[in-house]
Structures are given as C-alpha cells and as structure tokens.
C-alpha cells in the first residue's frame, strides 16, 4: 500500500510535471520573460515619450539552459508533491467509502485539485508576473494555504458528505477566504502592461488546469493498477 501510494505519486508527478513544463515553455515562460523586461526597467510602460503604448513581444527563451532545466526539475518536484497529497486523499477515500478509483474519476479528482490549489487562491492572489509589487510574502502564504485547505475540505464535504446542512457548511467554507480577503497593497503600481499581466494570469491557470488533469488521471491509473 505504502509503496503503491508513493510510486503512483512519483510516476504521475513525473508525467504531469514534464508535460506541464513543456506547456509552460510554449505559453507561460515567454510572457514571464517579457514581464522581466519591465521588472528590470529595460522596458518602461506608460512613460515612453508621454505615449501610453509600449513595445510588445518577449525576448524569447534564450540560452539559459541551467535556468530552464531548474524550471523542469522543480515542476516535477511540485507535481510529485501535489501527487502525494492527491493519492493519499484517493487512498483514504477508497478505504473509508469503498469508492473505486478509476481514470474517469481520477480526472475529477485532478480538476478538484486544480480548483482547490490553483483557481480558488487565484481569485484573491492572481498569478503574478515577475516584478508585480505585492503585499508581504508571509501573510500571502498564510492566506494561500488557508484558502487551499478550506476549498479542499469544502469540496470533500460536497463529494462525500450527506445532507443539506453539511453541503451548506461546505459552501460557506469555500466562500469564507474570499469574504475575509487576501492581503493586498493600498496602491496600484502597474509596472507591467495590464494586458500582459492578464494574459499571464489566465494562461498560467490554463496550463495548471492541464497539469492537474494529467496528475489526477495518472495518479488514479497507477493507483488502480498497483492494487491488481
């Protein structure tokens, strides 16, 4: 059981992490590198000759292979970490409720992971381009972790809990972090163009959604296979 849990998470994390990294290099990293031009002041938005326009286009991936290799490696570490939490939850649900884990419901597990870990926190703390000034990192991490826990517990109560009251509590739990509000600064800085920030936020969420679907699918696949 222990071996099956760990190996399922490692295999699923490796597949999801590698594919997510590949998608990030196509869709996300170019925007991130473009954002760094504004972070470093190589490009300035809204200040060029009194014009509101600024030049568009990223610098390309360049030849920083060491840096990009680290991005691949840490994607695998992150997806394996999330994979371990996911297989533990799948295994626990299977033991307690008798639910069979299949690749079909694995996809739903993955989507719920995406909602809890990416989408819900992004409602308060949008994925940030490098150089976006933000509140202190510690309170943001606390709100981020709290939102993930509240959303995950809420979703689990909706999936496995019975009764209107339990489901109402679950919805309240999911809503709570947003009513409380994420830590934000009192002013806007707008160092990077808003179009670039918005595109970065939505495309990184989209890529993370693909990563989580893969993670759920393959976690379930290896978990079910290991039990045969």
């Amino acid at each position: 059981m222990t071996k099956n849990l760990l190996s399922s998470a490692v295999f699923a994390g490796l597949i999801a992490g590698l594919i997510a990294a590949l998608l990030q290099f196509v869709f996300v990293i170019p925007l991130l590198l473009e954002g760094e031009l504004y972070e470093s002041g190589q490009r300035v938005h809204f200040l060029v000759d009194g014009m509101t326009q600024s030049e568009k286009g990223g610098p390309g991936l360049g030849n920083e292979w060491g840096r990009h290799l680290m991005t691949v490696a840490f994607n695998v570490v992150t997806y394996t970490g999330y994979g371990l939490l996911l297989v533990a939850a799948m295994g626990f649900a299977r033991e307690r409720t008798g639910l069979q884990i299949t690749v079909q419901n694995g996809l739903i597990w993955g989507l719920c992971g995406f909602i809890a870990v990416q989408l819900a926190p992004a409602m308060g703390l949008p994925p940030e381009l490098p150089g976006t000034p933000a509140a202190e990192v510690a309170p943001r991490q606390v709100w981020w972790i709290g939102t993930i826990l509240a959303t995950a517990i809420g979703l689990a109560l909706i999936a496995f809990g019975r009764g209107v009251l339990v489901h109402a509590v679950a919805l309240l739990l999911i809503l709570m972090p947003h009513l409380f509000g994420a830590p934000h600064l009192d002013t806007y800085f707008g160092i990077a163009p808003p179009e670039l920030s918005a595109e970065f936020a939505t495309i990184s969420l989209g890529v993370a959604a693909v990563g989580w679907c893969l993670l759920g699918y393959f976690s379930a696949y290896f978990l079910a296979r290991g039990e045969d």
Partner: protein
Amino acid sequence: MTTQTASFAAAKTHGLAFILAMTVGVALLTVSGMAQATVLHDAAHDQRHAMAFPCH
C-alpha cells in the same frame, strides 16, 4: 477474531501510509514553492511564478 485483528492492523498500516505520503508531499512543496532561502528561490523562480505560488 484473527480476521478482525488482521483488518485492524491493515487499517493502521494504511493510516500510516497516508500520513507518510502527505508528509513527504508537504515537504516537497515546501522546497519547490514556499521556502524563501535565496538559492532555492532563484532556482525555483520561474516555476513558482508559473504555478502561482506566492513568490517573493
């Protein structure tokens, strides 16, 4: 009786397996997403932004 003891023992082992998986998972995520040590932060930087961890 024997069966019952065996299933209790199995449930206990499974419980430990879940706790172990979650502990290792949280440890990996701390390294890849949360730890603020400069070396880790710089190496994981692009991935942290791409995965929307609260970075620096």
